[in-house]
């Protein structure tokens, strides 16, 4: 095997994004958020720091939340990707989205899609996390506007409503 020849600058991938099949040929170094925004026009996923720190790019791949800026599109052949556009359409995050609006948990909205995916994971676990636990779970998502209290209020509202409804 020729070592140089086997490495591809461009890679073919077939995946699903928000339930729709997508086939593409991408630069090997292109991360998932650039692919979603620049190639597919899905601008709901945001890129802030692009080195894993801010959480703005948090989305769902194969059922788990990941940093979209730290996953290469080339790696996603066969993967299932959900972005904020997709989950808004299915309505699965309606309660969280409504709570964010009611509690003023966003101002500019840059951090919000990532916040929603991180928060949704906590909500799905069930139970009634304390504010401290919510804060710890959300500690990888930065917001430059709200001061965080409103975000925690919104998540707490959803987790306690969910528990109350049981």
């Amino acid at each position: 095997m020729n070592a140089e020849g086997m490495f591809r600058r461009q890679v073919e991938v077939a995946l699903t994004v928000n339930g729709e099949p997508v086939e593409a040929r991408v630069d090997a170094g292109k991360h998932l958020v650039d692919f979603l925004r620049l190639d597919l026009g899905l601008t709901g996923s945001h890129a802030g720091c692009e080195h894993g720190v801010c959480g703005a790019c948090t989305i769902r791949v194969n059922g788990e939340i990941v940093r979209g800026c730290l996953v290469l599109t080339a790696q996603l052949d066969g993967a299932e990707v959900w972005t904020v556009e997709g989950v808004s359409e299915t309505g699965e995050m309606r309660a969280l989205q409504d709570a964010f609006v009611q509690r003023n948990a966003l101002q500019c909205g840059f951090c919000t899609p990532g916040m929603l995916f991180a928060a949704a994971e906590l909500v799905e676990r069930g139970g009634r996390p304390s504010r401290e636990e919510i804060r710890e779970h959300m500690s990888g998502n930065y917001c430059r506007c709200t001061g965080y209290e409103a975000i925690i209020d919104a998540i707490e509202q959803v987790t306690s409503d969910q528990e109350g409804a049981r």
Partner: protein
Amino acid sequence: MKATRVGYWRADSVEAALGALRSAAGSAQLLAGGQSLVASLNLRLADETNLIDINGLTELEGVSDEGDRIRVGALTRHRTLETAPLVASSAPALAEAAVLIAHAAIRTRGTLGGSLAYADPAAELPACMVALEADIVARSADDRRRIPAESFFEGLFQTALAEDEMIEAVEVPKAGPLERQVVLELARRSGDYAMVGLVLRADVEGHALARSRIAYFGLGAVPVLARGAMSALEAGDLDAAVAALAQDLDPPSDLHASAEYRLHLAGVLLRRAVARARAEGGST
């Protein structure tokens, strides 16, 4: 928009990955969780690189029972360390350490092998390997060797791995019935790399801590064993153990903390760790 020119190849077997690593002769890197590597590509720290993606190699993933040891595959995600029952029962320090790494969305991807190969001096898992006396199983196209963790970490971001070797797995001795394991750290923000952290393992019998091992992280180029403190704990003397840290450790000063402050914190963590080990061992 990224300037780094990247070549990509998805390996379909461990053998093929090792063959490619050898023939690339230093011009290619393994891509595991990508949580350090893709970040460095995005920051354009290199002009050009070739990636051997090992994420499809399921034989490198998972935890298995090997009698008196457990074997953890290199591609095992931090998230799996958090949740695997065999880790909780046999090497609980790994589960406790995993939760301290970054954030949930990073732990779903980041791997044990990537963390050990990257060898960040402030990382939790390398110190766990040293404290628990694990062996790192390194494999090349025609060889396999076991490297004791203490000699695996050679310097800042430097390991004993040769250019054509990958980490295949680690083997960790199972905790005995009297054994307690504690991982504690202090970081400025939750999920950040620690300013100071420690991994303590000991058999708790009454007040004495037998067979104790204390590995600090964030205090030097590699995980540091606090040998003076370890022997003081054998005699059950916690004050002497904390005093011995001044000889055992030579912490750096940087913008996160001064050397003096780090040494102070190292003592605080040791007292907390010993108190917890004794409490869990039924002694106070």
